[in-house]
């Protein structure tokens, strides 16, 4: 059998994180004309690493798995407009496409996982 944290719960966390990021991007796009609004984002990789290492520890010594609490941070280094808003249309569009593909990847992996199970049930036929 597989070792380490179960595949499905990992993929589930990944989907949740991608959806949170999608939400941050939607909020950034919605506030493209709001004076003083700052671009928010979450660091998908570091958040996912946090969840993975927590899940690994809990599978080793039976500790409580860490709760998924994505931390939103303000994006630095973007050009600020005179009204104090620093939402970049290109940056958000790119991030939206990226997040969408990452979400699709996780969905495909989940489907693949189910297909494998189904194939095992059917004896490989």
């Amino acid at each position, binding site marked *: 059998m597989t070792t380490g944290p179960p595949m499905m719960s990992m993929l589930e966390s990944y989907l949740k994180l991608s959806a949170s990021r*999608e939400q941050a991007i939607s*909020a950034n*796009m919605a*506030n493209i*004309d*709001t004076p003083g609004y700052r671009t928010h984002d979450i660091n998908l990789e570091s958040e996912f690493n946090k969840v993975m290492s927590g899940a690994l520890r809990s599978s080793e010594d039976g500790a409580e798995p860490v709760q998924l609490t994505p931390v939103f941070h303000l994006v630095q280094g973007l050009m600020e407009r005179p009204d104090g808003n620093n939402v970049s249309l290109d940056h958000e569009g790119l991030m939206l496409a990226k997040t*969408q593909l990452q979400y699709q990847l996780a969905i495909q992996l989940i489907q693949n996982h189910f297909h494998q199970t189904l194939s095992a049930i059917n004896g490989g036929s």
Partner: protein
Amino acid sequence: MNLFDSLSISGSALLAERQRSEVIAANMANAQTTHTEAGGPYRRREVVFETRGASSFRLALANNGEFHGPTPGSVRISDVVDDPSPALMRYEPGHPDANKEGYVAYPAINPTAEMVDLMDSVRAYQLNASAVAATKQMIQQAIGILKS
């Protein structure tokens, strides 16, 4: 559910941008209006956008990643303000709204500025509409797991 929150955030922006286009359309329609119910020429209007629940954005996220109450990060029009710039005075002594010297107060509306504003609004609307399409696709993919 997170993705449906994204939809409502984008939806709030679509609504706000639509209202903004309406205000711009009213400005352009009333570019020559010298007579209003309040008296005097039409005053150019501008919308003020505001983030809703932005202060609780990270607070709510620290709270187990779940949101309660109004969706944080959504946008709304907090106010529609009058442009304080003075009216344009044109010499038209025959006009019924002319003052004693024969000058008529016209609204200080620049059609070019209004058109640029309108284009900005339309682009922002398109941007948010594409965000809605992206979110919708993600939800459909998630539903697709059930269909495999």
